[in-house]
């Protein structure tokens, strides 16, 4: 118990630190005990509580209205989904726990927790509880609003109680699912001399919901959850879900006692490395995604080999091997080539007012496009290597982005074929798709390279909005042919600008 107490204290200190941080963002210094600061902290607390109360009330109203608007069929679908929730949650968490250690240490914890004689079971139970509380809270909110939406209007505190009971059932179901999933993960991470579990084991739990669906098996925890939601019998489902959660925690305690902390530490390396970048989640999620991608890539064995190729073929070969090793980088090309560009071209098939194009322009503006020039970005961000490549920026962008452009072209061709347009119209739509594809890549490329004599580059929002407005305005007044001419002109200008950099 002493170890559990120590670890709880450590968690509390972390939580307190985080609370102090968020309070400081709100302008309150909790470390400063002066009267004015305390008064301000009190005022801030009132403001935040008031805001939370109003937000919760508004959310309840919205959930109720949404439930009423969805009609009579919606509750049964929602209840079916909720019935499957505990099993699906267990399957997802178990797959995660079997793939990589459920317990993760930061670098500090490796030194001050893992490398100490603290009891393994204490570490396991505290880590599991910490994770369980987060998941249970999220599920409780979900089931609460599901109960509000499909269970009736919360007109008085008494009428809210079924929803609260449902939230409690959701939290207990999620706790049980988390604890049982962790049990599997901890069983894999226990000290043993024999062969490790096969790597593909983590795929097995993913088949559970499908198996349950195919065999029409009864989801006991799910049924208990929906029973609590319906309010048919108050105590029995809650007792059952609570018993599952307690059993899960006992198993966690049992299996954690033989935890192999060395293996856990090995599994935690990437997590620990990324820990220092976590604040970026709020300020710059794209940067965090990029760092995570790079760190994950560094942990993998290089896939394939750099194909042979001299001169201009060398960057092309590099681009190919880069996408082979990071195939997810081509998903963006599929999205832009198969959906966004064809949507823009298809809008010009019928005459519309210019305001009708606004949503498409917004989508073009906010959709993640950095993956289109991922290889080129690596070149320009590394001057020591860029200086060794004897190609101007336009040529290098074309070579680096050739695989992306090929995927975009294939996706655009497929999207055009699926529209079943007359041949002449289809060809014009396809041409416009391809020109838009090229424009997207060029606009992204221009953003990465400063213009000659200037420190700054032409930002993507500027170039893409100007391009989109020119193409759409021309297309709206002159048709697809005019849009193609306008798009070709934009591509030529963007290319000429990039060549100068």
């Amino acid at each position, binding site marked *: 118990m002493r170890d559990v107490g120590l670890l709880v204290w450590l968690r509390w200190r972390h939580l307190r630190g985080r609370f102090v941080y968020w309070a400081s963002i709100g302008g309150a210094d909790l470390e400063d005990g002066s009267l004015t600061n305390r008064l301000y902290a009190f005022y801030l607390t009132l403001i935040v509580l008031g805001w939370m109360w109003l937000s919760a009330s508004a959310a309840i109203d919205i959930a109720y209205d949404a439930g009423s608007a969805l009609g009579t069929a919606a509750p049964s679908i929602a209840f079916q989904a909720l019935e499957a929730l505990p099993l699906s949650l267990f399957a997802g968490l178990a797959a995660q726990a079997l793939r990589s250690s459920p317990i993760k240490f930061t670098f500090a914890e490796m030194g001050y927790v893992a490398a100490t004689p603290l009891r393994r079971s204490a570490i396991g139970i505290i880590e599991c509880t910490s994770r369980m509380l987060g998941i249970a809270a999220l599920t409780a909110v979900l089931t609460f609003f599901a109960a509000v939406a499909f269970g009736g209007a919360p007109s008085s505190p008494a009428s809210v109680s079924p929803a609260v009971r449902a939230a409690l059932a959701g939290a207990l179901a999620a706790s049980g699912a988390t604890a049982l999933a962790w049990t599997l993960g901890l069983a894999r991470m226990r000290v043993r001399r024999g062969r490790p579990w096969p790597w593909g084991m983590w795929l097995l739990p993913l088949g559970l919901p499908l198996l349950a669906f195919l065999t029409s098996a009864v989801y006991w925890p799910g049924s208990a959850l929906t029973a609590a939601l319906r309010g048919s019998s108050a105590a029995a489902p809650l007792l059952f879900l609570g018993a599952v959660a307690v059993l899960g925690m006992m198993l966690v305690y049992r299996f954690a006692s033989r935890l192999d902390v060395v293996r856990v530490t090995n599994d935690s390396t990437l997590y620990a490395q990324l820990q220092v970048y976590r604040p970026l989640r709020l300020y710059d999620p794209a940067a965090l995604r990029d760092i995570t*991608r*790079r*760190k994950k*890539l*560094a942990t993998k064995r*290089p896939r394939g*080999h*750099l194909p*042979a*190729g*001299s*001169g201009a*073929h*060398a*960057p092309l*070969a*590099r681009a190919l*091997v*880069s996408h082979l*090793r*990071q195939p997810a980088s081509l998903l963006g090309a599929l999205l832009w080539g198969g959906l966004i560009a064809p949507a823009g071209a298809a809008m010009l098939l019928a005459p519309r007012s210019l305001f009708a194009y606004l949503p498409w322009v917004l989508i073009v503006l906010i959709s993640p496009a950095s993956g289109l020039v991922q290889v080129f970005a*690596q070149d320009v*961000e*590394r*001057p*020591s*290597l860029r*200086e*060794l*490549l*004897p*190609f*101007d920026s336009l040529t290098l962008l074309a070579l680096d982005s050739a695989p992306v452009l090929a995927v975009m072209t294939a996706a655009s061709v497929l999207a055009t074929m699926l529209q079943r347009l007359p041949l002449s119209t289809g060809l014009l739509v396809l041409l416009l798709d391809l020109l838009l594809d090229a424009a997207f890549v060029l606009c992204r490329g221009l953003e990465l390279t400063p213009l000659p004599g200037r420190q700054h580059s032409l930002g993507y929002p500027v170039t893409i909005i100007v391009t989109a407005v020119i193409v759409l305005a021309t297309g709206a007044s002159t048709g697809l042919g005019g849009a193609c001419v306008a798009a070709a002109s934009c591509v030529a200008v963007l290319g000429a600008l990039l060549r100068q950099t």
Partner: protein
Amino acid sequence: MPVSEPLLVVRDIEYDYTGAAVLHGVSLEVRAGEIVALVGRNGAGKSTLLRCAAGWSAPTRGTVHALGQELRYAERELRRNVVLVTDTPPFYDDLTGREHIRFVLRANHLEDRLPAAEQLLAGFGISSAADAYPSTFSRGMRYKLALVIALAVEPRVLLLDEPFGPIDPVSAGELWTTLRAAASRGCGILLSSHQLPESALPDRYIILEDGNILAPGAPADAGDTNACDVDAILRAALNARTEDADA
């Protein structure tokens, strides 16, 4: 030391960073076949000077000429002949160390230098590790890989920022031999360093302090100064400046 035309001419460059001057009218030349050591305390402006000399940073005033052309407006072909290895060289995330070398050499139609590059890899002791991503390398290994790439291209001007800092003593000796061999083939080398291998004897020292050159072109073998003792040379120059100021 062979006397030849200057490969790199830095003339009266000034550089401002966030309003503060980092370099004050610095001028220097590097000729073919010579190794020039740039010596100075932290923050003296060595790295900034090297970045300006490589054409990576544009000086606020003054010019940089390499091989007779102003570097700022030079074609890519010329820029390939002026190579800077920074103290923390960056690499692609998705190419292995060996693939970096192959890629750069192939892009420049220099495949015939692959065997020489392999020899350099072996000489620096990173041949067996070169099939992994550089992101898994230690700092010294990353620097060695950057050196191999730079040396394999055989540039006319080689600029090195702290080359001996991150690497082990054995590799440092190997590097000095390699640099001397490159210089004998006509390469001009300007390197900044706080420490040199024992056997190293640069052709000239340039001492930089607060963005000014204190002792331009001081010969390595001047006076009683130990040619390898960068610390002693720097202290002597700083003391001389203090005495001048007092006088």
